[in-house]
């Protein structure tokens, strides 16, 4: 009789299926139940990371719980570990293994988190030092985010729109070309005015030459009749000089109009709305603007007491934080200090850069003003 057939009654090794009293049917049931349970727990684990059914910070705990449950399923249904007396040795060995694993993993996490807490990277240390130094001289005030002052961009000359290069939602820098009005009529006007100027200039030059010649002749002859001719020529030159001035003003105006066919964004910001299509005719000074641009900077107004107002000057750097947006900060400067009620209080205006447009009007803002 070989060893495995002579089943010793005292102990069972892990994974034993042929323990007495267990049939093939029992075995099939055990493995199938284990398979179904493990599959369900696995599916649950993959499911909970995809949904927001579980509160975000709790997902890790839920995953760990599901994993421990599944390991339990494997031990019981696949490895056939039980708490029965014939399984004591297996369970004890497992308990010892779990103890060591807990010590190694838990201990590593514990000690490394303490280490990370006490020994911060240099960069973070430097920032901390600056922060603590700044805190001594920093001034904290509370303000409110003001509505964004949007800018309307309209046409200053009438004409047909030949191209549109900006659309709603686009980020633009100051001076970015957003639309063009057909420049050909304006270019023709510039050419015409330039020719008029050249003609006026030529006539002026001719009169000046004749006056010079007449003056020379007068000096030689000293005749009374000739003197009146010079005076007439002088008046004619003055008239022609005025005409040249007018013509050059006309050229400047035409050139300004030609330049105005290029419709540019006056500020850095994001296009809020577009109200123009290529081929459409637009009027100068129309009621509806072609574009509305929301600036990338936002104004924050704060009311401060007299004691504080003396410590702030225009141009001071501020760092804005908002309770509604934890972890984000916005850099800005003090732009205006306006005393109220004989200097007892003052309104401070700050402008902060917010290119992602995270700050909403009415948000309570904390401003830290650092003094160098």
């Amino acid at each position, binding site marked *: 009789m070989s060893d495995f057939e002579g089943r*010793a009654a005292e102990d069972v090794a892990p*994974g034993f299926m042929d323990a007495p009293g267990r049939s093939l049917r029992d075995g099939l049931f055990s493995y199938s139940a284990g*398979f179904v349970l493990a599959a369900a727990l696995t599916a649950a684990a993959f499911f909970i990371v995809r949904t927001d059914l579980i509160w975000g910070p709790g997902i890790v705990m839920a995953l760990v719980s599901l994993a421990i449950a599944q390991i339990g399923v494997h031990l019981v249904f*696949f490895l056939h570990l039980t708490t029965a007396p014939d399984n004591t040795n297996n369970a004890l060995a497992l308990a010892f293994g779990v103890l060591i694993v807990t010590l190694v993993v838990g201990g590593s996490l514990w000690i490394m988190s303490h280490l990370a807490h006490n020994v911060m990277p240099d960069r973070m240390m430097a920032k901390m030092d600056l922060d603590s130094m700044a805190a001594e001289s920093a001034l904290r005030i509370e303000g409110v985010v003001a509505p964004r002052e949007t800018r309307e961009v309209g046409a200053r000359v009438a004409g047909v729109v030949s191209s549109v290069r900006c659309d709603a939602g686009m980020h633009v820098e100051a001076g970015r070309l957003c639309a063009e009005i057909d420049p050909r009529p304006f270019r023709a006007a510039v050419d015409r005015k330039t020719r008029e100027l050249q003609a006026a200039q030529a006539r002026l030059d001719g009169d000046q030459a004749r006056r010079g010649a007449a003056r020379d002749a007068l000096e030689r002859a000293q005749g009374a009749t000739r003197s009146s001719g010079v005076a007439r020529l002088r008046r004619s030159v003055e008239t022609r000089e005025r005409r040249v001035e007018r013509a050059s003003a006309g050229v400047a105006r035409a050139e300004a109009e030609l330049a105005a066919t290029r419709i540019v964004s006056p500020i850095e910001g994001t296009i809020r709305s577009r109200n123009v299509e290529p081929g459409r005719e637009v009027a100068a000074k129309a009621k509806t603007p072609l574009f509305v641009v929301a600036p990338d900077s936002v104004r924050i107004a704060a009311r401060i007491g007299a004691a504080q107002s003396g410590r702030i000057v225009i141009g001071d750097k501020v760092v804005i934080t908002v309770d509604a947006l934890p972890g984000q900060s916005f850099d800005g400067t003090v732009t205006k200090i306006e005393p109220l009620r004989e200097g007892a209080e003052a309104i401070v205006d700050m402008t902060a850069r917010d290119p992602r447009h995270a700050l909403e009007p009415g948000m309570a803002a904390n401003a830290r003003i650092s003094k160098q």
Partner: protein
Amino acid sequence: MTTTIEAPALERHAAPYRLGRADGLATGHGEAGPASKRVVVAFGFWIFLLSDIVMFSAFFAAHAVLQTATDGGPTGRDLFNPTRVAIETACLLASSFTCGLSALATDARNHVWTQAALLVTGLLGLAFLSLEAQEFAAMIASGAGPERSAFLSSFFALVGLHGAHVSVGLLWLGTMMAQLFVKGFEPVIYRLICFNLYWHVLDIIWVAIFTVVYLIGEGR
């Protein structure tokens, strides 16, 4: 000698879980004689597997500590493909199940079913390995190799160690199937038992890996 022990042993099977046995043949007191070879082999292998788990725990600890040490490089969220991990998990779980079925077939001494179950086990293991190899190759090709950051070093060490275990298991499985085919059940019966334990434990380790490395790592 064996017969004298066997007679009372069979009697006690009527109530195997009864506490405080009064017959005086309690385990570990030497009164019941030495444990059978099967118990000794399987228990010894169980101890080896637990020590293997302890080794894995060191790799897990390293990975858990370094999971966020990405050095500005790609994170788990950028790299992991949850669908592939789910398929890998399904392969390994199914192979663990078929491995259990092979143990049932072995108990029934059924050659055909044992070989069939072992073959399916091996094929599923092979599918798992090829998916993992694909993942590693894609990561290394995209510059996210083990040298990129401490996070990736620990990732490749931990998941690679598990993959190496699966590879060794497949070699073992192939050899054993050939031996079973040539020599029959008698000489390979302990190896089959040990392989069963080994394969189930690899699945247990994979449960920890897909939870800690992939699912938790994806959210970091």
